[in-house]
């Protein structure tokens, strides 16, 4: 069944703060095989003008995706998560995520569409630091494939 259009524009309360740790950034950088010293060496990061090690560009998805659960699991929305695939992903960065950040995410449903029985959901996650400054915006397109008719 098509998702309810009235959910477009709905925002959810901000997620609990996520504290970005140096070792978590290191773990992520190693997992993607990226040896850029800005991810692991505070002095190398400082030489580039950063106050501490920074995270790879896609690191923040682990935080925004968890925060998007508030939308995905909204029983009123009724998304069939077992049929969901990730369609598109985009980020716009004000500054890089860095160690020591305490980040909250506010998720908003930007668009709801139905195409050929597929439900398409665009979620925007606005990421802010502890001082309330904007850090990055993440746009996630989820596609719930049409269920086979019994």
């Amino acid at each position, binding site marked *: 069944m098509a998702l309810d259009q009235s959910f477009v524009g709905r925002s959810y309360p901000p997620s609990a703060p996520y504290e970005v740790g140096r070792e978590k950034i290191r773990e992520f950088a190693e997992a993607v095989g990226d040896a850029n010293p800005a991810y692991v060496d505070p002095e190398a990061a400082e030489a580039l003008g950063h106050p501490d090690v920074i995270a790879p560009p896609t690191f923040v*998805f682990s935080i925004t*995706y968890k925060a998007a659960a508030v939308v995905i699991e909204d029983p009123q929305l009724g998304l069939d998560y077992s049929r969901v*695939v990730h369609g598109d992903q985009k980020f716009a*960065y004000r500054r890089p995520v860095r160690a020591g950040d305490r980040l909250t995410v506010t998720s908003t449903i930007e668009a709801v569409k139905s195409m050929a029985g597929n439900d398409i959901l665009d979620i925007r996650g606005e990421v802010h630091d502890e001082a309330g400054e904007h850090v990055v915006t993440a746009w996630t397109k989820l596609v719930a494939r049409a269920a086979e008719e019994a």
Partner: protein
Amino acid sequence: MTAKIAYDDVEVGTELPAGTFPVTRAALVRYAGASGDFNPIHWNEKFAKEVGLPDVIAHGMFTMAEAIRVVTDWTGDPAAVVEYGVRFTKPVVVPNDDEGAVIEVSGKVAAKLDDRTVRVDLLATSGGQKVLGMSRAVVRLD
């Protein structure tokens, strides 16, 4: 932000050094742990096949993370990336052998924009097939 590439030194059509990124089952398990995405389609062959996939597939976000390395290796400072977006067009299938799969990424400057930024268009393929569509980054240069 201290990119090692100067805006004035690049032109539309400038090619970035290409990258070749291997992806094995072990890499996917590590990525699952590091990212917190434990969806079994990325590590459990039986489950992946039951939901209609040919085999275990790489996380789209893993592929996205590899593709941007062509840009961050080029600029030196990853903070030079001010925008980055992709479409997940085809999954990277990762067989359970010593080889796994390989993601090949090339990029070129597609446009020079205002504010000393350029748009880089990326091409990511695996096994000769395009795996990311509309893969673009806006990059601020010195």
